[in-house]
């Protein structure tokens, strides 16, 4: 058809395709499938832990919190092995290439770990401690790590769980817990206020924190206008 066409021919298709052999369709596909598979089992374990911990919201659940935490800790053992297997599914230096796939579940696991630690000690779990519970690293340099934004997102989910806990502990007759939660969440709120967040998903979730704070303050207010905050737990129910 033309005189100049000799230059490229089949060799050209080969070039376009060779770019693909680097991102190779099949290798990438297999890798993604394996990652998804592990992430699915992780999600399953996370759901189990969540179900377990949901028990604390029920009246009777307040009695055996330590036992529930103990059980949850055992489940975190399974999480550890699952995350260890996730690590083997992709090259260590491509963490952020596949980040989106486990982002959600990792945030949920942070939330669960924070919840367990809070129920045990009433303190905020540190990033290092979460990493240890999950069997991963806190620093990027050392391998599969916990991204700071994921950690903070998980903590924010945990904060809304706390506002629920405050409400339900009143129902269960534990009037002192909301006060402690209030102090805690206020501290958390001032912590988050130190951060300069970008207009991203973390920021959106942070914007929800004020409603959790408000909810807990309302609970504390309700208790204090009725004088229930002074009394020991359980006493209010007997009146």
């Amino acid at each position, binding site marked *: 058809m033309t005189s*100049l*066409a000799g230059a490229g021919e089949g060799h050209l298709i080969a070039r376009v395709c060779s770019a693909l052999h680097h991102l190779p369709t099949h290798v990438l596909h297999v890798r993604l499938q394996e990652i998804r598979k592990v992430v699915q089992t992780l999600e399953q374990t996370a759901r189990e832990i969540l179900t377990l911990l949901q028990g604390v919201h029920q009246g009777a659940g307040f009695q055996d919190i330590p036992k529930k935490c103990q059980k949850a800790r055992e489940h975190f053992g399974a999480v550890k092995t699952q995350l260890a297997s996730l690590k083997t599914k992709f090259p260590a230096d491509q963490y*952020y*290439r596949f980040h989106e796939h486990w982002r959600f579940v990792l945030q949920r696991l942070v939330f669960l770990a924070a919840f367990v630690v809070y129920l045990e000690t009433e303190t905020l779990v540190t990033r290092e401690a979460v990493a240890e519970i999950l069997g991963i690293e806190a620093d990027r340099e050392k391998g599969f790590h916990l991204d*700071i934004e994921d950690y903070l997102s998980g903590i924010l989910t945990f904060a809304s769980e706390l506002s629920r806990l405050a409400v339900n502990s009143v129902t269960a007759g534990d009037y002192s817990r909301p006060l402690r939660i209030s102090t805690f969440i*206020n501290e958390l709120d001032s912590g988050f206020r130190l*951060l300069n967040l970008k207009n991203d998903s973390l920021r959106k979730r942070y914007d929800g924190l004020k409603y959790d704070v408000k909810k807990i303050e309302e609970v504390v207010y309700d208790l204090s206008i009725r004088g229930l*905050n002074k009394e020991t737990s359980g006493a209010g129910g007997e009146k």
Partner: protein
Amino acid sequence: MSGKEGSGGFRKRKHDNFPHGQRREDKENVTSSSALMISFKSFQLELDTRHDKYERLVKLSRDITIESKRTIFLLHRITSSPNREEILNESEVKLDAVRQKIKQVAQELTGEDMYQFHRAISPGLQEYVEAVSFQYFIKTHSLISAEEINKQLVFTLDEKEETTNTPSSNSHNKQQHTWSLKVTPVDYLLGVADLTGELMRLCISSVGNGDIDTPFELSQFLRQIYDGFTYIGNTGPYEVSKKLYTLKQSLAKVENACYTLKVRGSEIPKHMLADVFSTKADMMDREEGLS
């Protein structure tokens, strides 16, 4: 359980226990020293560092995009210019300037996970791939490979910077300082997909200049790229399959141009070809608008 009897002295109690002022104080105490606040201060630092880096990369990416676009515009002038070499040289100078920017990107990304900041730099890199492959096509009539692009993106520290940056250290250490940036396969593919749009424009403007050979050559080239992309099909990433549609349109335009040339080229004097073609192009635009 509601304990209404407790509400008698609520006014007093409320003020005793939860006056707003006092709570503020609590917060201020908290702000200073607790373990939680200390760790959040370190989070602040970490997030700020990351966001700053991201912003710097976005800015660099914009500069790269703009300069690459200008290079492409410059290269389009080649069809009407008598001085081909001059324009090619000028484009090379421009691309060198772009590569200086990419060097800065590479420096920013030293020790980082490239994919973490990929979203910031991806548009710039794609535009660069487009520009550099366009220039390569004009020179050699073939497609530049991803390896060749990456080869040009290995940088070493040059003498001038060495003296300004760290005057104390000697040049022996400095020689080990190289930075490189790899264009990801996806960026490469997207850049090449954009290239086809430029080639389509080149085809039309070359018809305007009475050049009858180039459109045929281009149509063949585009068809091969199209074949390559259809081979990937929808197994590739989402963005690639999106570009495939535009690619098809560009190819159709070029193929129709060739058709017109073939059918009517022998009948019409060369200087009128542009008019024939422009009406044809208008018609196609309208058709696309409808679909």
